[in-house]
C-alpha cells in the first residue's frame, strides 16, 4: 500500500542532486533551508537517521521495506552533502550496507551460503532496536530528577573553632594538570587563548574588580606610580584587552569639561 503511494509521486523530478534526479521530495522535508541544516545536524548518526525515517512513517522496525528506506536515506545523505555538512564516514558505510541488503533481497536465496553468516538485514534490525532502546533510556534518564537542576542538598553549618581542613596541593600537581589541558587543546588554539602575559591577565581581573564599586574610573586611577614604567604598560595592555573582549567601555565624559578618558564596565554602558 505504502509502495504504490510512493510510486504515484515519482512522476516528476524535483531536483538534480549530484547528477542524480531527485524524484520525490521526502514528505518531511518541507522546511526552510536554514532549519533544514539544523534538522539534519540533529541526528546522532546513521542509526538515528534511519530510526527517524522509520518512525516518521509509522513503519515497524522488524518489518522495514528496505528499498523504500534505502532510497529515502540516500536522499538525506545527498542533502547533507549538498549543504556541505560534514558527513561522518559512518553515514556512508550505512548507505553501502543498505544498498547491499537491497541487492541481496533481489537475488534468489542461496541457503547454503547464508548459513554461516548472519543475514545483514537481521543484524541491522537488531542494531536499530538496540539503539532505539538506548535512545529511549537516555531520554528517560534525562527526565529523572537530578542534582543541580531538581535536587538540592541541605547542609547545616557546624560552628567549630577548628579551621576547616582542605586538601594539600603541590605546585607540581597544578602544573601537571595544566600541561594536560594544553596537550588536549590543540597547539594553535592555546597560543591564541593564552597569548597575553600573565601579569596582563591578572591586571584585567583587578581592573574589573575595581569597577565593581564604581560607575566608572578615570584612566589615571588605573596606573600606579610606584609600579613604574612596566606597571603602566601592563595596565594599558589590560585595558586594551578588556575593551577588545567587550568587558569594558572606554569613553570620554560628554560634559566637555576637558576631563580625561574613563572606563566603565560594559554592563553599565548597556544599562
Amino acid at each position, binding site marked *: 500500500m505504502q509502495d504504490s503511494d510512493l510510486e504515484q509521486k515519482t512522476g516528476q523530478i524535483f531536483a538534480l542532486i549530484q547528477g542524480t534526479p531527485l524524484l520525490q521530495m521526502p514528505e518531511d522535508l518541507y522546511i526552510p533551508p536554514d532549519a533544514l541544516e539544523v534538522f539534519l545536524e540533529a541526528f546522532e548518526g546513521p542509526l538515528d537517521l534511519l530510526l527517524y525515517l522509520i518512525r516518521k512513517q509509522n513503519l515497524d522496525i522488524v518489518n522495514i521495506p528496505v528499498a523504500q528506506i534505502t532510497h529515502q536515506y540516500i536522499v538525506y545523505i545527498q542533502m547533507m552533502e549538498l549543504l556541505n555538512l560534514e558527513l561522518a564516514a559512518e553515514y556512508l558505510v550505512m548507505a553501502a550496507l543498505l544498498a547491499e541488503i537491497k541487492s541481496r533481497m533481489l537475488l534468489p536465496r542461496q541457503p547454503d551460503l547464508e548459513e554461516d553468516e548472519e543475514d545483514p538485514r537481521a543484524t541491522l534490525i537488531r542494531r536499530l532496536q538496540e539503539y532505539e532502546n538506548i535512545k529511549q533510556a537516555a531520554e528517560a534518564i534525562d527526565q*529523572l530528577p537530578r542534582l543541580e537542576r531538581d535536587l538540592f542538598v541541605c547542609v547545616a553549618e557546624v560552628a567549630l573553632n577548628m579551621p576547616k581542613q582542605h586538601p594539600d596541593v603541590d605546585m607540581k600537581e597544578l602544573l601537571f594538570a595544566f600541561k594536560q589541558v594544553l596537550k588536549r587543546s590543540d597547539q594553535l588554539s592555546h597560543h591564541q587563548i593564552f597569548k597575553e602575559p600573565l601579569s596582563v591577565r591578572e591586571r584585567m581581573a583587578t581592573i574589573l574588580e575595581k569597577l565593581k564599586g564604581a560607575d566608572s574610573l578615570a584612566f589615571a586611577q588605573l596606573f600606579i606610580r610606584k609600579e613604574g614604567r612596566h606597571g603602566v604598560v601592563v595596565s594599558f595592555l589590560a585595558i586594551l584587552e578588556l575593551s577588545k573582549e567587550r568587558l569594558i567601555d572606554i569613553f570620554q565624559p560628554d560634559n566637555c569639561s576637558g576631563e580625561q578618558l574613563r572606563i566603565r564596565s560594559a554592563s553599565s554602558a548597556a544599562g
Partner: protein
Amino acid sequence: MELKAIVEAILFASAKPMTARQVQQVFPELEQPDLADIEVAIDSLIEDYQSRPVELKKVASGYRFQVRSELAVWVSRLFEEKPPKYSRALLETVAIIAYRQPVTRGDIEDIRGVSVSTNIIQTLLDREWVRVVAHKESPGRPALYGTTKAFLDYFNLQSINELPTLQEIQNLDIVIENQP
C-alpha cells in the same frame, strides 16, 4: 532519643551522603552505638521528615538531606549558574555504560553507530559518573567502563536497578523468514 538527635546533626552537617556505617564511625571509638540502633534512628528520621520541605533520602552512597523536589523550582534560582545541560550523545553514552557495563568504547560505538568523542568519555570520568573497571583482554587492552555510585547519587537513585527499564529486543527469527 539522644542518639537520634546526634544522627540527625551528623547527616545535616555532612556535605556528602553517608551510610549508617559511616555515621557510626563518627562516634568516638568506645561510644559507638550499634549499627542497628543507628538504622532505627535513620528510619525514624525519614518518617519525621516525610511531610517537610526537606527530606531524608537514601541514594546509592548513603543518606542525605535534600530539598523536596516540589520545592526545587523555587530553590533553583538561588544559584547563579544555570544547571548544566547534557547532550544526547553524552546521555546515550552513559546509558549504554549503565545498562551494558562493563563496556569498551568500541562497544559503545557499535551500539550508537557513530564514534564516541574523547570529550564525552572525559566528561563522564571527570564527573565521576563512570570509571575504568578493568581492561579487556583483547588487542590494545581497551578500558572497560562502568558507572559509579556518584552517578546514581546524581540522579537520586539507590541502585542501578532503579534506572528506567530498558525495552526488550523483539525476537526476529520468525519475522525475517516471510520477508519478500
